[in-house]
């Protein structure tokens, strides 16, 4: 399989995650909860894959999320590109083999995105105590879940690439 084929497979895995999270949110809606999985979706593209693959994937996922969210058009596209850039910046500042480093960066990315959304979508909202409680709850809930899932999700994608003949970890350690 070519590199492009493997990258497409990784993109499809993330697309599947996008729909699974949507299904999870269907059930969480009954509890007034929502899991924002934006950082998980672009984590692997930002930390492991090349520049063009990462950019294209982050943009496509941004378009997908944008079209179903009632936000000004372009919010998610621009946001995901920003988050991808943040992860690229974090590439050389963490040890990707260290689960704690990777989990912390993923959770920080997710929290950063939720804070940016809070600032961006403040128009028309009434920022009272209940509003801030809800924001805090979403940040803690999504941040914790992202922290828990980031390492297994990346390891799964790395193992998938390894089984397809691409040892991405060894490639990076030689750089």
């Amino acid at each position, binding site marked *: 399989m070519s590199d492009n084929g493997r990258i497409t497979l990784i993109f499809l895995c993330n697309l599947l995650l996008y729909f699974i999270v949507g299904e999870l949110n269907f059930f969480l809606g009954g509890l*007034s909860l*929502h899991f924002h999985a934006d950082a998980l979706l672009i984590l692997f593209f930002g930390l492991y894959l090349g520049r063009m693959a990462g950019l294209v994937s982050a943009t496509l996922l941004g378009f*997908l999320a944008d*079209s179903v969210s009632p936000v000004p*058009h372009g919010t998610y596209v621009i946001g995901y590109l920003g988050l991808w*850039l943040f992860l690229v910046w974090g590439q050389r500042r963490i040890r990707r083999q260290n689960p704690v480093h990777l989990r912390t960066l993923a959770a920080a990315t997710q929290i950063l995105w939720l804070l940016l959304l809070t600032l961006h979508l403040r128009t028309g909202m009434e920022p009272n105590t209940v509003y801030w409680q*809800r924001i805090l709850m979403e940040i803690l809930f999504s941040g914790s879940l992202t922290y828990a899932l980031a390492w297994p999700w990346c390891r799964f994608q790395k193992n998938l690439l390894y089984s397809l003949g691409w040892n991405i970890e060894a490639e990076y350690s030689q750089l």
Partner: protein
Amino acid sequence: MPRNLTHQAKSLLLVVLILLLWWFTPSFVKRWTEVVFQEFQAPAWTALSYMRDLRSYWSERSRSKSELIEVGVGLSRLNAAYAVRNQQVDSMEREIRRLEGYFHLPSFPEYQYEVARVIKRDLTAWWQVLVIRKGLNYGIEEGQAVIFAGGVVGRIKSVGAYTSTVELVSSPHFRAAGHFEGDNRPVEFRGGNNPGLKAATGTVRTVPADLVTSIKEPLRLTSSRLGGVFPDGLTLGWVYNLEPSPDGLFQTGKVMLDPRLQSVREVAVLIPIEPRGDPGR
């Protein structure tokens, strides 16, 4: 690009380039991409909802025959009760028509009920929307009312070819005219900030100062025809407490919405039926 640029700097330059490109993209192209991506993923969401239906079908199949017979008996009782109520409604409608004709009153708008399954639910701090499994293919249009067994669900926000997005009454951006049961003076209803793990709420404003409510005798807030979207008398929520507004002329209060709203699986879209042209005129 110069060779001495780092990987991060090159990535930054590329993102800036894409952002500039996005900035200068005409709005019709942006709108087109939005529609394309929405329609692209709609079949996947629909397929997921069919899988959910299939799952519940198989779980229902595991029920014993005696349980099903019991449910059937209950349903036949309900059917009998609804048949009697239908007859009463028919006679009341005839009476309304007769009075409308007698007093030369304009008739109430009539609606066709299009029942649709909920396929996606996004209840966040900033927006509260549902996606339903019917769209333009069933004549659904933007702004139409959506209801369920517990009252008002919301209104159609956007329509796709096979799916529609509904803005819930609990959404912070939702506004509607309403009135209290037994009192025709209009009030303003707004969706509120919703706490997590609790039932959704809204707020009611411009409530006349003479209205009184208590925990034992709450007021039922219903929809009003004034907005032109909802028919009269559908439940919006219940108000247990009213407080005077700063100007002293009105009152404001918190509206407790139906807790089933957050887990609703089936809704009905009210599609207005165009009045038939009178050939005599």
